[in-house]
């Protein structure tokens, strides 16, 4: 479900400025520079974030403008991968490894540093075999209207999106604040004086 079909769950932003002159040449480079890339090692566990072409999350090359720019709409996605190990399974395997080490060395207990080394080795082994959890979230930038829609209302996802958008394009995303939909006098009146919650005020 996303901008092309199905119900939409999205937050709207205003972009602080127009896209730069010659953005058709500048943006592919910017997107490529912040595109999603698999880490070199297979045993990574930190979050990996980057842009992908919406039509296929494995497509991370933005040179072909026609794959992501449609008239005034720039349409691409943010991919976030993260690997997580099942804690109980990890502990059970570690206990087995410790037991095996104790038998092999005929030690009564496993020293703390050996336990840490065994745990590190086990995590690396498991992470290399684990597929990441993959999240892909679409965004649409109306370049003519200076608005951006991001297909998530999660605060964490939106914070991450705003950060990488700024890193990529050098433009700040501002929330589409309802106070900016009304004239200044009304906005000041609505904002000022700590207006009471209506539902309390209307209590009989």
């Amino acid at each position: 479900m996303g901008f092309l079909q199905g119900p939409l769950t999205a937050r709207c932003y205003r972009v602080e400025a127009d896209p730069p002159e010659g953005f058709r040449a500048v943006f592919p480079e910017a997107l490529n520079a912040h595109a999603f890339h698999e880490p070199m090692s297979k045993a990574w566990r930190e979050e990996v974030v980057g842009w992908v072409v919406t039509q296929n999350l494995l497509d991370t090359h933005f040179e072909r403008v026609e794959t992501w720019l449609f008239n005034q709409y720039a349409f691409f996605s943010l991919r976030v991968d993260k690997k997580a190990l099942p804690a109980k399974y990890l502990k059970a395997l570690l206990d087995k490894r410790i037991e095996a080490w104790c038998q092999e060395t005929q030690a009564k207990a496993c020293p703390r540093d050996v336990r840490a080394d065994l745990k590190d080795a086990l995590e690396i082994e498991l992470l290399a075999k684990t597929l990441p959890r993959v999240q892909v979230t679409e965004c649409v930038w109306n370049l003519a209207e200076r608005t951006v829609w991001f297909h998530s209302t999660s605060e964490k996802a939106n914070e991450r999106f705003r950060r990488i958008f700024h890193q990529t394009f050098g433009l700040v995303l501002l929330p589409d604040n309802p106070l900016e939909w009304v004239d200044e006098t009304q906005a000041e009146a609505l904002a000022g004086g700590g207006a009471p919650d209506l539902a309390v005020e209307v209590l009989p």
Partner: protein
Amino acid sequence: MTDIAPVLPHLTPEFLTWLWYATERDMGSFALPEGGRFDAWVDDRLSFRTADDDRPRAVLTGENPSGSLEARAALAGGKLVRDLRLGLRREEREYSLVLRGGTLDLQGAKLPGMFKGHEEEALFDRMFLLEELRWLVRTLFQHFAAERTGAAWETDVLPRMQRWVAGEDG
């Protein structure tokens, strides 16, 4: 990076409560800025929260929840409208959405039409509809702001809303 301008938390429940009231008072018909009208109604969901907790404390669903005694009782008991499912119609285009949070995010917004053409055409059509939907919500908020900050708020609108909450609106 510029900090986000603060979004005032009290405005959303006030706006949603006014919207619920205004859809009943005005028979769900609202003026557009450039002329013409559109329809708005509270659809099949209303949820309430307490003043100090954003979690929903009462959720009413099904047919016409806004007309139920429970809904008015929640307001009368001091609960705030947390979110509601709103129906909107302009010309032949009908929308359904939940508005939530200080920036009135869209939750589960349903746009009219079924798009089976090329992806590019679908994007143009859906973005046109999404932008119209946001514009209609913006128009409703502008109606709210005009009433909320107008001279008649204290003398006319608020007393009428109090009677509406108390079920004395005829």
